């Protein structure tokens, strides 16, 4: 048993850290540090800087631009990105659509979409949830009717993050409503957001910010070439993606940065035992999460197998920590400093989403109960 990183891994971390320090534009760093709104241009600017360096999609196969790093290097890279306070890499193209295309897409689809995702030419969003289908995703109703060489799509998606920036959306749609088992008859479609019949309506969350939307489809024509995997096999694709998604939800680098900031902010309150104890407990939670995460990576590296369903615990603990950090930060803030206090209050409100999105934490518990514990 040895919990320390190897000399090579430490050197790799130093290299990544040095490169980020030299290449992350100061104005972007400043914006994230102050929890300011990030425009599409802000997000794409950082995306393209990483793409130019060849680091925007480390997990992809090398032939498509991946770095060939092992799981530990990839984790170190992600942690450093998070720790540096760089704008987030929007996952919908890089970490969701692309892995699906790589696993299920045709050669033509890969050639058409992957380079544009890599270079930040297409901005993607995810069309999964619907007003009546949240945790019960498989009950979705948006329908796609096949007509010769295309589908006609009608229905509504909700909670569509950054749909107002997106050029493309990948969607789960129902292609066969007659089947009894609701997981069957679902297909995975790629849709151009500029298609006639697509309408995006903002949903303003309780922090006052505009991140998510409703997306309406009114008889939108989608070429049949944009179907991924076979018709009716969309649920297989969705499940593949959900497993992929959960590995990235610990957000340990981000939380480490926020914790460091919180400690700095709360220096005047360290004589207050009640506050201090909550801070220490939070720090220990984060350490436990980090080591648990490393145990998963160690297991993945040794077995070459993807993580099991128990990886859901990283999502549960990671989001609880992010929320507690936001809460303690608000408590540490000076209420008389309106601008700062208000930004932190809004952030606190915004972070409530983390235990709801990407499979609510209750759904994650269901997954562990069923898949890991066999209940």
């Amino acid at each position, binding site marked *: 048993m040895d919990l320390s990183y190897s000399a090579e891994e430490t050197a790799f971390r130093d290299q990544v850290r040095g490169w980020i320090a030299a290449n992350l534009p100061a104005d972007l760093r400043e914006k994230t540090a102050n929890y300011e709104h990030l425009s599409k241009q802000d997000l794409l600017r950082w995306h393209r800087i990483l793409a130019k360096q060849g680091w925007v999609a480390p997990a992809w196969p090398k032939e498509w631009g991946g770095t060939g790093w092992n799981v530990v290097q990839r984790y170190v890279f992600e942690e450093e990105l998070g720790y540096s306070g760089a704008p987030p890499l929007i996952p919908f193209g890089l970490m969701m659509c692309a892995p699906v295309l790589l696993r299920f897409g045709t050669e033509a689809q890969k050639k058409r979409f992957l380079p544009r995702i890599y270079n930040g030419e297409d901005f993607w969003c995810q069309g999964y949830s619907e007003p009546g289908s949240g945790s019960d995703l498989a009950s979705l109703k948006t329908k796609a009717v096949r007509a010769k060489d295309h589908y006609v799509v009608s229905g509504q998606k909700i909670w569509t993050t950054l749909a107002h920036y997106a050029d493309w959306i990948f969607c789960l749609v129902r292609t066969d409503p007659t089947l009894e088992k609701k997981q069957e008859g679902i297909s995975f479609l790629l849709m151009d957001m500029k298609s006639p019949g697509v309408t995006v309506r903002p949903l303003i969350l309780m922090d006052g910010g505009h991140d998510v939307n409703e997306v309406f489809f009114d008889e939108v024509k989608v070429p049949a070439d944009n179907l991924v995997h076979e018709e009716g096999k969309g649920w297989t694709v969705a499940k593949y993606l959900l497993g992929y998604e959960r590995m990235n939800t610990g957000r340990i680098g981000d939380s480490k940065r926020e914790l460091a900031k919180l400690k700095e902010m709360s220096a005047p309150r360290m004589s207050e035992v009640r506050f201090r104890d909550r801070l220490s407990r939070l720090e220990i939670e984060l350490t*436990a999460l980090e080591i648990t995460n490393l145990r998963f990576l160690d297991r993945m590296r040794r077995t070459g197998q993807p993580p099991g369903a128990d990886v859901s615990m990283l999502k549960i603990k990671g989001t609880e920590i992010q929320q507690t950090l936001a809460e303690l930060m608000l408590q540490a803030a000076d209420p008389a400093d309106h601008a700062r206090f208000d930004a932190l209050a809004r952030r606190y409100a915004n972070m409530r989403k983390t235990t709801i999105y990407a499979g609510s934490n209750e759904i994650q518990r269901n997954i*562990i109960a069923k898949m890991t*514990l066999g209940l």
Partner: protein
Amino acid sequence: MNFDYNEEQQLLADSVRRFIQKDYDFEARRKIVAGEGWSAAAWRTFAEMGLLGLAVPAEHGGFGGGAVDLMGVMEAFGEALVVEPFLPTAALGARLVARAGSEAQKNRILPQLAGGKLKLAFAHAETGARYDLSSVRATAKRSGAGWRLEGEKLGVLAAPLAEMLIVSAVSGNAVRLFLVNADQAKITGYRNLDGQLAGDIVLLDAAAEPLGERDALPLIEEVVDFATALVCAEGVGAMKYACDATLEYLKTRKQFGVPIGSFQALQHRIVDMFIACEQARSMACLACSKMDSHENERERVRAVSAAKIKVADSARLVSQEAVQLHGGMGMTEELKISHTFRRLTLIAQQFGDADHHLERFTRAGE
């Protein structure tokens, strides 16, 4: 980075589990607890297996191992709720003597200890000290060629079993350690809630032999950290048993015509137990590996205290929920769950509860 036990460590843990399966299952343990409170036969086997010498340096008949080398054994002991005086003898005793003893003392004591012929107890805590290791009022005075001790020591693990005590006492203004033959002390023995033997000790003009130099506090703190890291590993084993047994119960116990594990309210609770156990395991790994390779004292203190907080919190959650999910049966002495609850409750307190370690963790971070 590597979270596995090495081959030797794994083989040892496996052989401990085989021994437990054969000779120390719940029924056997019940008989031991109802009888003398420890098993001389088990102790002999521990010696033969090399467990008692794990923390004894190789040149004194041991294995020269660190906390990680003992971790798998402690986990197995935790699963089985072993009540033998392993921690006071093979961890605290062996390490104190190995670190503080003269060559003559080490030669005299350690091979005997590793061979199962000598049991030690560490008599340190006193009334009012709680978990503060520096609070020592027992006194040591020179008397002719030797030393004499006066004072009271409370809650000393294995006190009724030990042939030799390691006693802390003040001499001048420094805390020192002394070896005292058990026949020099008045020992009132009792059973702790978890079935382990412990006792209160009165020393009146007790003949003593100095162990190590003046100012033993840094050493005491280091060795107690070592034992704390091991108790964390033991706690992980006990929690693993509690989680496994509760899961099995949820799958087999039927109410309203279905296994109670089909109820989501219970599923989410056992998932939280399972997560708490994994988090505790991560922290026990941290504590044991930092115990063996820390760059400075602060790093060691932070790791061990952080682990103890997590283990204490997890032990509380897992033990309480295990009983709750077992229903009335979980409350009874008939099920091992209730005994696991007892041990986990004391593990949460042993060498300092979560509040104590929270204070220590924070102070070491300043």
